[in-house]
């Protein structure tokens, strides 16, 4: 058992570091119209993007801070650096990546991962994609996987067609902020009928105290195509609050299949306020597989708008809320077309005074006949000073919908712990095993390497709470 503990300790140390990077360009602290213009100028963007940023900035100013979830008023927008550029240009090959940044990625395990199975790597170091490689065979089949800034340069027509159509700037205060100051993120384009054989992966990192990160991801999957995108986050630990306000847009055209997997493990000082939404057209399938273990506060409800007949939505959302954390997560399925199906499964664990909130929205609009939908939320509370909330919104406006929703909240059964301890496990190990079992619906959807990583994260959380 000591060996396992050491391994866990090693990994914690691996995530908790901070390299001193020389930033080649950065904006002043705080947000103004000048900042927005400056960011666009740095990037030499087309005028329509600048105008889009400025409109979003105006909306951000007008829009009041949401009060339906608490604590957002603690964000000090004036202390944030909205843009940093750590190296001059996008790197195409590993050899060109600056040594200092390479060292950071070495610790994250990227080269090894790439050797094994990576299809391509887009890694975000602070606000810019600095390293990026797309395998030759992906290029051969026409798959585009690159940083969003590069995507805008090289595929402006596709970006312009879809940017902001799934998540408009006006959707909420933080989508407006992201649209105004976005930088980095991934651009994925899968042409008609192409099945991407391996998952596309991007590593994101926040480095630098008070660096806001506003990445923007756009995934366009053409008719009959198929792709799996994976993002995992780690961040160094700092005392003051960081802000991460991302927007992810997925366009799943008819007959396509898209899976988007996230393991979010920001350090416990990050506000993680993310708008993730997909449009699913006829016969397409969209899957959000979303886990949140880190951050001080996460507000994220991966959404699927079922716009075409026979589209399918599948959302698995997992949250672990420890000391000082509030995971305000959930899912939304909006049925806009006939014969569409959705399934939402949510699992949350709260402990050491943490708070896990499930917020969900299931809507069946007039005209969306013959919908089948189900929602299942389970919450586990490990002690009696933690909190668990469930707020599901169900709005049905058709007469032939079949919808079921179930939720339970409970604690770890003493019988189960006793049984496992009688088999020689310590109490901590028994509880850890039960929590891992509770979250298995999520873990089993992950590629093996990620499943191992995720179980380690859970274990690490559990050790922190009980060890």
């Amino acid at each position, binding site marked *: 058992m000591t060996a396992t503990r050491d391994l866990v300790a090693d990994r914690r140390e691996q995530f908790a570091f901070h390299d001193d990077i020389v930033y080649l360009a950065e904006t002043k602290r705080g947000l103004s119209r000048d900042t927005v213009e400056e960011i666009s100028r740095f990037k030499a963007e087309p005028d329509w993007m600048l105008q889009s940023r400025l409109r979003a900035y105006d909306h951000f100013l007008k829009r009041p801070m949401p*009060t*339906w979830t608490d604590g957002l008023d603690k964000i000090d927008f004036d202390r944030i650096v909205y843009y940093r550029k750590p190296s001059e240009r996008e790197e195409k090959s590993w050899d060109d990546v600056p040594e200092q940044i390479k060292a950071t990625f070495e610790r994250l395990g990227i080269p090894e991962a790439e050797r094994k199975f990576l299809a391509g790597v887009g890694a975000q170091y602070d606000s810019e994609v600095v390293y990026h490689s797309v395998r030759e065979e992906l290029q051969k089949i026409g798959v585009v996987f690159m940083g969003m800034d590069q995507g805008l340069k090289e595929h402006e027509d596709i970006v312009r067609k879809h940017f902001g159509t799934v998540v408009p700037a006006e959707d909420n205060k933080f989508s407006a902020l992201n649209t105004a100051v976005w930088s980095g993120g991934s651009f994925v384009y899968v042409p008609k009928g192409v099945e991407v054989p391996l998952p596309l992966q991007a590593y994101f990192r926040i480095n630098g105290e008070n660096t806001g990160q506003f990445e923007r991801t756009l995934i366009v999957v053409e008719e009959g195509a198929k792709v799996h995108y994976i993002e995992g986050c780690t961040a160094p630990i700092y005392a003051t609050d960081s802000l991460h306000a991302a927007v992810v847009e997925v366009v799943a055209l008819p007959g396509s299949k898209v899976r988007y997997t996230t393991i979010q493990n920001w350090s416990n000082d990050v506000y993680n306020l993310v708008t993730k939404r997909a449009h699913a057209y006829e016969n397409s399938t969209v899957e959000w597989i979303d886990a949140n273990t880190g951050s001080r506060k996460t507000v994220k409800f991966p959404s699927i708008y079922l716009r075409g007949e026979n589209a399918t939505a599948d959302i698995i959302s997992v949250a672990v809320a420890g000391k000082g954390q509030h995971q305000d997560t959930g899912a939304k399925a909006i049925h806009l077309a006939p014969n569409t199906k959705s399934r939402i499964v949510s699992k949350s664990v709260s402990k050491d005074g943490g708070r896990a909130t499930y917020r969900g929205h299931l809507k069946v609009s*007039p005209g969306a006949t013959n919908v089948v939908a189900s929602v299942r939320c389970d*919450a586990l*509370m*490990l*002690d*009696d*000073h*933690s*909190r*668990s*909330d*469930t*707020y*599901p*919104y*169900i*709005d*049905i*406006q*058709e*007469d*032939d*919908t*079949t*919808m*079921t*929703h*179930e*939720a*339970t*909240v*409970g*604690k770890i059964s003493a019988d189960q712990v006793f049984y496992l301890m009688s088999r020689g496990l310590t109490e901590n190990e028994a509880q850890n095993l039960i929590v891992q079992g509770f979250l298995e619906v999520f873990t089993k959807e992950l590629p093996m390497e990620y499943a191992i990583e995720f179980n380690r994260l859970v274990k690490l959380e559990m050790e922190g709470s009980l060890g």
Partner: protein
Amino acid sequence: MTLARAPRAPRRAPTDLTFFLDEAQVESRAAAEPDWLTADRRAAFARYAALPIETNQLYTTYVDLRTADLADVRPWDEPAATPQSREAPAPAGVAAFASFTESTIDALALSAEARSAGVVLDSVDGLIGRDARLARRLLADDRSLPLNDKLAQMTRAGWNRGVVVRVPAGVRLAEPIVIRWAVGQGGRALLTRTILDLGEGAAASLVEELEASPGAAGRGEPQALFTGSLEVHLARGADLRVASIQDLPEGTVAFQHRQAEIGEGASLHWALAQLGARLVRSRVDNRLVGDRSSVEQVEIVFGAEDQLFDLTSYTRHSGRDTTGILLSKAALMDATRSYMKGLIVIEPTAVGTDSFLGEFGMNLSKKARAVAIPSLEIDQPDCRRAAHSSSVGPIDESQLFYLETRGILPEEARKMIVLGFLEPVVARVPLASAQDRLRELLAAKWDEGAAAAQPAA
């Protein structure tokens, strides 16, 4: 040929309340009422004036008062006439009987048995004259209506009729109490408080009947407003069963507030049927403060035309080993809307809670809309159960098929399934005659809806 269009009503926000309670009217009562009551009304008026229509941010998007046209509605302001049948006995099989038509008290009657057991039944005005201390305890209790609810505070500030029932400790009434309100006169507002106080170990059942007065306004006529509270105090070990049959006329807008403080070992059963009124906004607050206290709440909605039922239920578990079972069911015809909002709160002190919340909808028309928001806020994981479930679905085809194989015509089979879906509340009405009446009301409403749905021959 073009038809002349009626002038468009000005656009209104869904949260705009068109009824205004006049401060002068509240003040005008001061001369005739004791100072503590005036102070209570003033405090309530200040809260009413300051509060938004919905204070809970979970529900702000599900408020819609646009079908309520109450700008010209005025409260009844003259004092109630003394009932003539005051000394008359209650009808057979009923322990206590209170009946109101519009602003008039028709009857306040007790059975001989109830009278000798010391049961009190009186109008609020009557109680103030008779027992000011009891009146003050019951009326000026801040816990008896939610302080953060604009409409509850409006009733508290401006109520013009009230009835109080008190069942002394140890008295267990075998026969039900019946309270009947017949209302709906266009242009008039009746703001009422109903207070039930059960002493230690007391037991009682109540049937509340809300129905049309002879002069009630129909669709298209000036609307009427009825607001009603039901403030329940249950001392240790008390047991109360409440059945409400709401069949108000279609020109009436109803705001209802039911609040119960449930003491140690006490139990409360609600059976609430919502059929009538143009627009209903109702809120139930169950406060399980005593250890081993319990509440069971079963509510049905059967809507037609463009009725809107906006129903919220809060259940707060504070004591140890408390039980809360809540079930809401809505069958919706035509363009009915039903917003069922339920929130269970389990406080850190509430060890051993058993809590279940179920919200079920049946949309019988393409234009119907069912919203369910069954929520949980849990601060104590040591629960026997903390769960909720919800479903919305059409009439089950296999049930329909089964009934048809037994020779039942499809339309009759549909009726049986829908009425069966709503039966849980019917079965809980404690008075046989009221139970029969509710069954008839439901069947008649189905027949009307089915007739309207038939294409013209």
